């Protein structure tokens, strides 16, 4: 009979398997009592990526995250985590997801440890006999071991935030969602959060972190989505977004003439500024520029990279917000 029907390509060869997506949204929209909070959000978060969700306050970041996690039902559109539809697949997907959303939420009269035990009881992936160890490790990881037995209501804002992070990290996760994790933290705390995110990334965990601070995102993320007024205005790998637009480096030097000569020889375009020269990088690397300058014997006091792309975009958005 029809023998040909049986012959077919090995699975996955005919259509190259799309890189796995930890999270995906399609046409996500949320309307609260006639106000459009989020509109047509299409996110694609690759497995293992650290996505920075960037945007001014009220831009729809938290609503988007709440819909991702099935806490809020979208008005339109849909969400997939690990290829499963949310919120229908919550019991399949959420055990693998750790989240800190809308700030930490705990029982005030329980200790930090007591609160984590409460959540540990609800964690599907945690064996009862491992709860003790998991809670202690999570407390340790966020630096709360010393305050673990104090009542939550006596915690500072930063400590509360750390406990929220500890809850998100109670068991090993495939996806960790952190909504403004550095709120209320001092600079040291912010650095620690970055280290935690770095550790997650190294372990192959996908991370979605929202922030209204560009510096935070830039230091920790591989991918960025910028939101404003409920819509995603830019999204992609951080490197691509940053290099969009012309990148220049301001070179501060006492010997402008020598610098100009070296740059001309190496094919860099430059124009004078008060401290020295502003150099167009084009598609080249700032490291190469500086190496050529130093090799050419130019005294370089300082080289500052001026970015276009994301920074400009974000500046425009936040200034608009203030105005």
């Amino acid at each position, binding site marked *: 009979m029809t023998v040909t029907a049986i012959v077919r390509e090995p*699975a*996955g060869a005919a259509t190259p398997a799309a890189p796995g997506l930890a999270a995906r949204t399609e046409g996500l929209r949320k309307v609260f009592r006639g106000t459009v909070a989020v509109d047509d959000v299409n996110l694609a978060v690759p497995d293992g990526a650290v996505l920075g969700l960037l945007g001014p306050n009220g831009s729809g970041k938290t609503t988007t995250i709440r819909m991702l996690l099935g*806490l809020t039902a979208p008005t339109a559109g849909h969400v997939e985590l690990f290829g*499963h539809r949310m919120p229908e697949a919550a019991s*399949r997907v959420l055990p*693998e997801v750790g989240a800190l*959303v809308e700030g930490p939420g705990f029982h005030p009269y*329980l200790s930090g440890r007591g609160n984590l035990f409460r*959540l540990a009881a609800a964690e599907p*992936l945690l064996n009862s006999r491992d709860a003790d160890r998991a809670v202690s490790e999570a407390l340790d990881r966020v630096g709360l071991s010393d305050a673990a037995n104090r009542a939550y209501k006596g915690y500072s804002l930063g400590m509360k935030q750390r406990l929220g992070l500890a809850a998100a990290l109670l068991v090993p996760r495939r996806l960790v969602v952190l909504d403004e994790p550095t709120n209320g933290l001092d600079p040291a705390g912010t650095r620690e959060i970055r280290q935690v995110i770095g550790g997650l990334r190294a372990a192959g965990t996908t991370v979605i972190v929202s922030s209204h601070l560009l510096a935070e995102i830039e230091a920790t993320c591989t991918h960025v989505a910028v939101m404003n007024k409920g819509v995603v205005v830019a999204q992609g790998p951080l490197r691509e977004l940053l290099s969009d637009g012309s990148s220049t480096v301001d070179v501060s030097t006492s010997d402008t003439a020598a610098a100009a000569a070296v740059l001309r020889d190496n094919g860099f375009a430059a124009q004078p500024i008060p401290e020295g020269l502003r150099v167009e990088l084009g598609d080249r690397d700032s490291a190469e520029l500086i190496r050529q300058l130093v090799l050419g014997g130019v005294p370089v006091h300082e080289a500052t990279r001026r970015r276009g792309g994301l920074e400009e975009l974000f500046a425009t958005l936040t200034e608009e917000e203030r105005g």
Partner: protein
Amino acid sequence: MTAITLDGAPSLQPRTAPFGRLLASEIRLLLRRPRTIVALAVLALVPVLIGVGIWAAGGDSGGGPPLFDMLSGNGLLLPLAALMVALPLLLPLTVSMAAADAIAGEANHGSLRGLLLAPVGRIRLVAMKAIGVAAVIAVGLSVLLVFGVLSGWIFLGGNGLITLSGTTLSFVDGMGRVLLAMVLIFTQLAAVGAVALAISASTDHPLVVMAGTLGMLIVFTVLSNISALDWLHPMLLTTGWMSMAADLLRDPLTLDGTGGPLLRAGCYVIIGLGLATVRMLNREG
């Protein structure tokens, strides 16, 4: 391997934490909550205060609520009298407080999100909360029972239970009547708890739950005193509450008056838990 590359994700199985572990955690949380402990202490005080008062007055109860004039030398009646004193307000307050904290309170603290994200399925969550509220009722009634029996024995004395019919029941039979009263009151309070949970699942404010539940009971009491509305009385949860204890104190025992309250409580429990589940499934987490 193929399944992973084709879907872009391994097929995940639904997983959930053991229900017993969740329940243990919920009940531990409820019983460690300072306000629960205060409410239980107040409940324990009720029979002790009545007992001490009558003992100090030299056995003269000096009138008061029904049953009080029979208390002297009738210690086993004290848990029942205490129950009747606590039933209109103190017990519903304790129950609605537990139900208020169960969902609205957790939402208010933001800790409900943690449970939903764990995830605890929303229907399991309602089941866990309902059993938690039932546990608080059981513990509250047990406190009344234990302190009632003890202070009756210490302050009022007596052997067995003197009934309204004038006969004296043995200690075992008397105890049986007291336990029967506890079971009946449990069902009524479970109905109160179910209504409170339904409100709790609809709001983020625990006070709304307590005000709503107690308000409902107060309105019911008022309505039940209006004879023009007697067609409405069979639908009011509070109907028959006060006569229940008296019915249990007749010899021989007549259970004619208990069917109505039991049926009513059952209806309230079903409607309350049904509404709580529907509200929970549709609420924002």
